[in-house]
Each structure stands twice: as C-alpha cells, then as structure tokens.
C-alpha cells in the first residue's frame, strides 16, 4: 500500500513543516552541543517546539494516510509503536505485542502480500524490544525473493536483524543472494553485499566468493567498497580464500574514491592476518601506494566533505597507518620506507581536536609496532607524554593504554612519567584508574617498589569501595613479588589487611601465614602488630583471621614481648587481654563460620599457653556447644572434651604448629590457581621429606599445606571432586598413620566430619595426613584401633585414653579370602612399604580343597588402568589335594588413584585335574579400604 508509514514520502513531511531546515551542524568537532539532539524523555512530559512538530507531523501523516488509503486495514507501524510507547506497565506492553504478533502470524499464514513489509518492520521493532520473532524469519526470505526494491530492502534488513549466522534458515537465502549479487540494479547489489557482509557464514562464503570477487571490479565505486568489505567477512570465515582477493585488493588501492580506499585498506589488513603469502605480496606491491595515499591526504588542502576538525579524512589516515603497521612489523626494509611519512604525520598533525589525536594515537602505535628508528620512537614517546598531561580524560586514557604497550619497547622512557601515572591511579574515573593501575604494576621494579607501594597503600585508604578489590589484588601481587625483605612484606601486608582485609583473596593471607611460620625471628613482631591492628580495625575479615591464628600460635610472644625488634615499642598485653581479643572476635556478629572456627582453635591453644585462663576458655567454648552451625558445635564439643578430659595429652596436642613448608605451599597455590588440582604430583613431594621428631617426641609429618591445617573447608577454593565416601576412608587411614599419601581430598567440602578430625589432629602437630607408618612406634600416647572401624568422631577421641595395644604394622590390613569355590580357596594378605602408600604387596595363597591334585596351576589377574600390577612367579604349579600345603604367589599393585579409588581385580585360575582343563574366575571387591 502506498501509504505504509515506513515508506511515507519524505516530501510530505519536509514540505509541510519545519519551514526553515536547521542549519547543518558544523562538522568541525565532537561536541554534543553542536549536534542538536533534542531531549525528549519518554515519560510523556510536555514536549517543546520540535516535539510539537513531530506530533503535528504524526497527525498529518495519519490524515494523509487516511486520505490516500481509506481501505487500510490493521494498524500501521507508527500506530503500533505509539501504542507500545503509551503502555504504562510491562504487562500492558506484553499484551499489545501479543496482539500484534497474533495479527502478524495470521497475516503470514494467510500469505498476505500487501502488508508483508509492514509486518516485517513491525517484527523488527518487536524484536528490538526483546520479544521472540522467529516466526517471521521465513517472511524475510519471501521479501528478499520478491522482485521490487522496497521489499528487498526491508527483507534484507530483517534478515540481518532477526537472524544470526547460526540459523539454518540462512542457508535458504544463499540462492536469492546469488541472484541479487548479479542484479543489474546497483542498489539491489548493494543490499545483497551489505547483508552478506554482515551475516555470512562459512558455507555462504565459499558459495558466493566468486560473485563478490567479480564485484570488486565493478565500475560503481559504491559497489566496489561494499564488495571489499564483504570480502573481509568472507576471508574471516574462510581464510583459505585470502589469496584469491590479493591482487584485486592491491589494485583497489590505486583508486581515488575515499570509500573505496578505506574499504580496500581494511581488506588488505584482513588478508595479511589470514595469509602470510598475502602479507608478502602486499609488502612488495602496495607500500609505495600507501605512502602516496597518506602523503596526499595529509597534505591535501581543505576538502569540506572529508574535513573533520581541520584534518582531511582522519578515517583514511588511521586505516592506512594501521596497514603500515602490519606491513612494517618485523620487516626492516618496509619500516625504513615508511619512517619519513610517519615522522611527517606525527609532527604535522594538529592535536587540539579528537580527530587529530586519534591519528597521532594510531601513528604512535604504528611507530611502536614497526622497526622504527630511535629518533622516531623518541618522537612517539613524547607524543604520549603530551597526551598524559592532557586534561581530556579520553586522551589520558589512551595514553595510559599506549604506555602499557610502550613499556616493552622503552621502559626508561615510561618510567619518566611515573609520577603522572601514579596520579592517574587516583583519578575520579574508574576506567582511567584501572589502566593506570595496570601500568603501575608493570612499572614496579626493585628500586622503586617501596615508594610505589607506599603510594598505593596510602591511596587504598581513601579509594572507592569498588576500586579497592582491584587495588588490593595488585598491591598484594606487587608485595609478594618483591618480598625479599620480609619485615617490609609483613608491614605492607598488615597495612593492607587493616585497610582492605575484606577484599583480600584467601590465598594471599594463607601465603602470609606460611611466611610468618617460617620467619621465626619476626613472629613476635607479627603477633604484636596484628594484635594492635585487630584492636583498631576488627571488621576486616582477613585481618581478623590472620590475627586470631597468630594469637593462638604465638600468644606467649604477645604477652611477654618476646623477640622484640629494635624499632618496636613494647606493649603491655595480659593473658586475659589476649583471650578477650579472641573472644570479642568470636562474639562479633559479622564474623563468619570460618573466622569463628579459627577463633575456637585459637582459644583452645591459648588455654594451653596460658593455663590461668583455661577455666574461662572452657566456658567460652562451652557456650558454643549449642551453636546452630554444625561446624562450630562440633568443634566446641570436641574442644570441651579435650579441655576437660584429656589434660594429659593437651599440652602436646596443642603444641605450636610446625613450620609450614613454603615451597610446597607455593606449588599447591599455583596448582589451585590453575584450577587443576593434580594431587598426585604434590603427594610424593610431601612424603619425601621423611619423618623427623619434634621435642615432645611426636613424629612430625612433612609439613602439610597450610590450607589443610587450617581446615578451610568452608571457603577453600580448590575443592576437589572426590566423593565423600573415599574421603572418609582416606581420612581414617591418615588418622591411623598407615602411611597413605594423598592430598587430593583436601578441602573436600562434602566431608566436614573428616575435616574436623583432621583439624583436631592438626592442633597438636600430629600426623594430619600422610603420616608415615614408622611414626606409629613413636606415638606412645596415641593408640588406635586397626582399620575397618567406623568410629564416631567423638569416640575416636575417647579412644585415645582407652588402651589397646598398638597394632602390628603388617596387620594393619586384615587378610581376606579373595576367592572361594568348592575346590579352591585363595587368600590375600597385604603389606605396604613405608612411604609408598600407593604400592601394596599382596601375598596370595592358594589352597586346593578338592581331593585330587591340581597340576599346571596358573593364576591370572586383571586390573583397571589406574592400577599397575606385577605378578611374581608362583612357588609351584602343583596344588596338593585336600589342603595339604598351599602355593603362594606375590603380586605388587600400584594404585595410581590411591585414595580416590579402591583396588579392584579380576582373577582367573586355570589348572588341570587328571589331565582335564578346568577354569575358574571371579572378581575381588572386598579389598580392605585404603589400598
């Protein structure tokens, strides 16, 4: 219909209102004020003059439509938009859209042709609002297949809006596209090229590449430029096609039309990325032309249509500079060839407008990217220096961005701007702050780390909440990277903890604890500093945790002012002050479970360090016995039990934690940050240290990773996927010191009870895990029962006081009957080498229950892939009858997934009875847990 609003004659409006068309805005600069976009809030306030115009316009249009087309049915696009805009609630809007969609669906199913394009326009609007419009996709294809330009125009628009390249429907349009690419009307060709350029998939690219290639030679410049851009998309989808476009792209660079030049330069860039051959070809054939283009455009006199801020066509400038960068990268000859023109552009370009700065920015990047002379580089760095002192935020932003790249080329030159960059870290704009912070991070070296860190930490105090997280992470990272001076490291960390303890990642404060544990001369200083910090800023979660841990471990250093540093002032803290501090933390409403749990451990330790406070601590712990959080309740009950009933072992149980293995922790941390927990690697490392003794005679396992000791199950990042059941088994074995090494279920959140047990033991520096079996003999105080117990958590503890004899190591695993039939019985007994938990030596014993002797007896076994099996020769191949003696054979099994998977084995026995072949087989699934 003639009157469809999308296609309303523009003249109707232009002639009827806005008598004097507003003067065209000056194109000279980017300033919103220059281009007058009138503020007309959607809310429906009284519009000013121009809005009135548009209301009139709408009314007039409506009248005209009525006049021209009295038979118009259905709502027009404009009416629909108006109806949608009039909706006050989302529900209303949905109702309108639903009504419209229903009408459009009906029209589609009727095959209505007159309103097809209007419906498509409506659908596009509905689509933009976020409603589903898939039912209209086929309509696009019909419109595209129509003969007329108006239908095709709206059809192609619908195609690019409603579909994306992943939709099957797209395949159906290839044929129409092919026809339109060969159409005689250049505008229809243009539509097809535009659509292809925006949505083409790899298949379409292959099918239609020849057409596009041909169109690159078209006479019409508008078709040429579209074809060039379309080729970019094709090459992106199918890089193999790059070489087909090489020569055509090169010849396009000889054109005069700026649109064609811009498109051609971009096509060349894409070709260079896709194919090395194309890159070489363009280096050889185009460089001269590019230099000429750049010279012409930068020397050109005023050209009103291309002029932006006194510069002729900055877009062309920038694109040529980009292509030059690609061609000059790693090629000294090319770089030398373009040196002069780059120098010319970077000195002559005016930098008072955005357009000029954009060119300078690109020019600097190109100079940094190619093998430029040192003089040119100095020029570039100077431009950046100017940028950095610019008042315009955008310019400063790109300067920081560029300096980040330039640092690889010339660190010294960037260092010169350090003060300015540091100021940018404190900028009001978060984008600039982030850029500057990244740059500062790169600028830090041994000589400037201390002043820079001081600046950053000082700023941390006043920075925005949103920015603190980024800032803290970077400071921590810097401090850790340059932590040669431990005192300095501790000081910085304490400050960061006090200022932004809530933003610190767990691994950072874990590392801090590991370091403190290793720096025995600084422990006193640490605990005193932390105590003071805790008093001042007790709301910082990480600070609280570290402080509470330190007070628990090094409480006596706090109270007695032990190992004072020279510059330190002695402080007076009584034993009950220390307990007060921890109690206050425990009581604080905002403390989370992990913190409270750590408080409980700390209190328990203090009860042993400061015997006079023991009674009070008992009460505090007892208060939490009824805590609704299971973790805390359990700890409280266990700890109460320790305090009340196990005085004899308490002091050794609550010894200071052994020195944590720094190297091991770092390895583990690295592994966990990579989110790849490969426990098998770290496990042997943990055991390799071998057992050694502590003064109290408790065998000390190799230092276990900190995370385990602290039992951070509730918030530990590297939660492994081990199932709770296996974790339980492991734990029991670990507890019993059977010598299994496995650190995989660390932080296994599902098995809280295990962790608690672990924790209990960790308090007393007793084997947390992978305690080697030799330690058993040196553990007179702790007597445990052999394996297949399913003890309750508290029972285990109580079991400590009951006395059963220490089990023989070899009997740790009971002998099992692996197989039994009417004629044959096989028993397995197990032995483990100390320190090699994965390996088990199985002694198999075969007994003949029948009355006839078995000859040629052969025992075979098969295991899953994670297990390695070695069979030693059997003691005999003849089994005497009626159980009169047996044959033995030993098997060595290595379980590579030890701790995660139990052993499993299938067996087969073949033998001869009276010369007759017999075969028996079975599966062994009753291996004792933990092999």
């Amino acid at each position, binding site marked *: 219909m003639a009157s*469809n609003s999308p296609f309303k004659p523009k003249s109707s409006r232009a002639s009827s209102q806005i008598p004097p068309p507003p003067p065209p805005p000056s194109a000279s600069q980017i300033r919103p004020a220059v281009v*007058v976009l009138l503020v007309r809030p959607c809310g429906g306030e009284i519009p000013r003059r121009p809005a009135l115009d548009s209301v009139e316009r709408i009314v007039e249009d409506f009248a005209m439509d009525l006049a021209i087309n009295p038979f118009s049915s259905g709502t027009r696009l404009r009416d629909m938009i108006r109806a949608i805009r009039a909706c006050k609630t989302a529900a209303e809007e949905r109702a309108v859209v639903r009504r419209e969609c229903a009408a459009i669906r009906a029209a589609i199913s009727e095959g209505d042709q007159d309103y097809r394009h209007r419906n498509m326009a409506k659908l596009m609007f509905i689509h933009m609002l976020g409603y589903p419009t898939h039912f209209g996709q086929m309509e696009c294809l019909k419109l595209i297949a129509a003969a007329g330009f108006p239908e095709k125009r709206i059809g192609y628009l619908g195609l690019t*809006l409603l579909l994306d390249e992943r939709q099957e429907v797209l395949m159906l349009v290839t044929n129409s596209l092919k026809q339109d690419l060969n159409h005689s009307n250049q505008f229809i060709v243009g539509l097809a090229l535009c659509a292809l350029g925006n949505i083409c998939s790899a298949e379409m690219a292959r099918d239609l590449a020849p057409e596009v290639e041909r169109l690159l030679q078209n006479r019409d410049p508008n078709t040429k*430029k579209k074809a060039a851009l379309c080729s970019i998309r094709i090459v992106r*989808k199918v890089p193999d096609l790059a070489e087909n476009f090489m020569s055509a792209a090169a010849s396009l660079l000889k054109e005069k039309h700026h649109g064609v030049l811009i498109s051609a330069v971009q096509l060349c860039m894409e070709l260079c990325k896709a194919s090395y051959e194309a890159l070489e070809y363009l280096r050889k054939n185009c460089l001269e032309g590019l230099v000429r283009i750049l010279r012409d455009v930068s020397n050109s006199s005023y050209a009103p249509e291309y002029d932006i801020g006194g510069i002729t066509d900055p877009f062309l400038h920038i694109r040529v500079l980009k292509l030059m960068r690609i061609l000059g990268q790693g090629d000294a000859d090319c770089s030398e060839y373009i040196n002069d023109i780059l120098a010319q552009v970077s000195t002559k370009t005016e930098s008072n407008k955005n357009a000029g700065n954009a060119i300078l920015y690109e020019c600097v990047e190109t100079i940094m990217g190619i093998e430029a002379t040192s003089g040119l580089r100095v020029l570039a760095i100077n431009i950046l220096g100017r940028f950095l002192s610019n008042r315009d935020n955008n310019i400063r932003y790109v300067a920081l961005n560029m300096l980040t790249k330039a640092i690889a080329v010339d660190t010294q030159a960037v260092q010169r701007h350090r003060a300015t960059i540091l100021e940018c870290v404190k900028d009001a704009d978060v984008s600039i702050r982030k850029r500057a912070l990244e740059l500062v991070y790169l600028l830090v070296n041994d000589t400037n780390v201390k002043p820079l860190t001081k600046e950053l930490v000082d700023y941390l105090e006043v920075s925005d909440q949103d920015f603190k997280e980024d800032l803290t992470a970077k400071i921590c990272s810097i401090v850790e990277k340059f932590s040669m001076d431990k005192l300095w490291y501790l000081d910085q960390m304490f400050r960061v903890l006090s200022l932004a303890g809530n933003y610190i990642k767990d691994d950072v404060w874990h590392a801090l604890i590991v370091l403190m544990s290793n720096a025995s001369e600084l422990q006193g200083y640490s605990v005193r500093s932390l105590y003071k910090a805790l008093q001042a800023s007790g709301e910082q979660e990480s600070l609280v945790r570290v402080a509470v841990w330190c007070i628990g471990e090094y409480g006596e250093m706090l109270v007695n002012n032990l190992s004072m540093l020279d510059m330190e002032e002695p402080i007076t803290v009584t034993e009950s002050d220390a307990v007060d501090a921890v109690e206050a933390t425990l009581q604080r409403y905002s403390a989370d479970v992990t913190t409270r749990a750590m408080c409980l451990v700390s209190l328990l330790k203090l009860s042993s360090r400061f015997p006079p406070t023991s009674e009070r601590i008992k009460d505090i712990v007892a208060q939490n016995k009824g805590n609704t959080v299971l973790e805390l309740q359990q700890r409280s009950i266990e700890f109460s039990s320790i305090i009340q009933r196990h005085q004899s072992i308490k002091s050794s149980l609550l010894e200071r934690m052994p020195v944590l293995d720094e190297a091991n922790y770092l390895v583990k941390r690295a592994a966990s940050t990579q989110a790849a927990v490969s426990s098998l690697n770290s496990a042997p490392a943990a055991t390799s240290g071998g057992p050694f003794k502590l003064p109290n005679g408790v065998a000390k396992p190799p230092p276990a990773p900190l995370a385990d000791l602290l039992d951070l199950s509730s918030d530990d990042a590297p939660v492994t996927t081990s199932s709770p059941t296996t974790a339980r088994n492991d734990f029991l074995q670990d507890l019993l010191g059977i010598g299994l090494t496995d650190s995989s279920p660390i932080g296994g959140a599902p098995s809280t009870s295990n962790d608690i047990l672990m924790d209990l033991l960790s308090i007393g520096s007793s084997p947390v895990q992978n305690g080697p079996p030799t330690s058993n003999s040196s553990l007179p105080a702790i007597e445990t029962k052999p394996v297949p117990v399913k003890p309750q958590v508290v029972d285990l503890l109580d079991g400590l006081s009951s006395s059963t004899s220490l089990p023989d190591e070899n009997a740790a695993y009971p002998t099992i009957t692996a197989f039994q039939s009417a004629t044959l019985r096989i028993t397995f007994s197990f032995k483990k080498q100390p320190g090699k938990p994965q390996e088990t030596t199985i002694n198999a014993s075969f007994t003949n229950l029948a009355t006839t002797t078995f000859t040629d007896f052969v025992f075979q076994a098969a295991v899953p892939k994670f297990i390695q099996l070695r069979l030693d020769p059997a003691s005999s191949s003849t089994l005497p009858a009626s159980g009169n003696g047996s044959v033995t054979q030993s098997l060595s099994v290595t379980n590579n997934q030890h701790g995660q998977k139990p052993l499993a084995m299938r067996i087969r026995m073949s033998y001869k009875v009276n010369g007759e072949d017999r075969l028996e087989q079975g599966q062994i699934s009753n291996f004792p847990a933990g092999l």
Partner: protein
Amino acid sequence: MQHRGGTVDSGKPAAEDDSAAWQRPAAPPPGLGPASDDPLCWLSGHTRLSEGAADLGEIHFVLLVSRQGKVRLTKWYTPYPQKQRSKIIKEISTLVLTRGPKLCNFVDWQGYRVVYKRYASLYFCMCIDPADNELETLQIIHHYVEILDRYFGNVCELDLIFNFHKAYFILDEILIAGELQESNKKSVLRLVTTQDALVEAAKEKAGSLRNIIAQATK
C-alpha cells in the same frame, strides 16, 4: 585376564574387554574450556582470526540505548545467540548508564572495550577490541550521529523510534562487517535518499496500478 606367572604388565591385556568399562570412572569428565567465558569464543565453530593479531579488530556490535535503558538500535557484527544478546545489552546498558558525566568515554567490558558517547538522551555504544583505536571509534560514532542529524534534520530520539529502520539503513551505509565503509557524509546521505526515492517510486507505481485496477473493477 592373560596374565601368566612372571612379570607381566597388566595395563595392556586388561585393555581388551573390560578395561574400557573399568576405565570410565577414572577418566575425568571433559572439562569446560577456560575460554568458555569469552563471549565471542563459543559462538561459532571458527576461531576468531583477530585473536592472533588482536590489534585490528572490527566493531563487534553497535548499541543505542536511551537514558531509561530502552534499546533503540542494535546491530551485531559478531554473531551472538539471541539469549546472549539480551544479556549483553543489559550488561552494557547498566555499565554505561551508571557512569557519571565528564568521565572518559571508554569502559572495559569482559576483555573488550565499549566506546560510548551520549547525545542528548541517547547513548551510542560500540564494542571494539581492547587494542583498537578508541578515539577513532568515537569519531565513527560522531560520524553516524552527524549523518543522522542531516538526514532527519535536527534528529531526536523520537525520529529514531518511529523511523528505526531508516537509522538501520543509514548505519548499513556506514558500516559493513564491523568495518567503516564511507567517510564522506554527503555520499552516505545521497545513497540513502536515492534508495528512499526508489522505494517511493515503486510505491507510487504500485499505488497507481492499484487505483487503475480498483477503477476498472468497480
């Protein structure tokens, strides 16, 4: 099951029949690649070429949102599935609309950079690669706005609402495949108006034909 007495490695023979079944729990589930967070990575089977030489990316999408967060125009040059699109729009609008005045026109977003500029009540946003020229992208936005302004004559948000398709047609004459097509404003305007005229001519022809038929069948 083929182990004879003597030293035999179990791995090989066991593989024949049952090890596959036994092996299954041991094999780790195929992990989701760490790249799956990248909004552009998982969209299509192809690897993005710009990843290697990341400094020459195209414009990934153009987005126009009003100050109230209403979408006025979206154009995607990198394919995103529908769901992802609305998520991105939501993210970008909140990111851009919450920024105060006088701040710079660039924000980092998921490893990409969004260049935006506010004109009256409308925010024009373009997403580019972080190594691309932000200042130039800003200039492209301005280029588009100036052309819109000339075309509509003092363009306002309502023009873009009621004539959104015109805004798309103009954009299509400026950008294809996320790359700039034409730096000459007049030439863009000429192309668009010529095509508008073509449409009008076709309408009139159809209209008059229809009238003749209507007259004839009366």
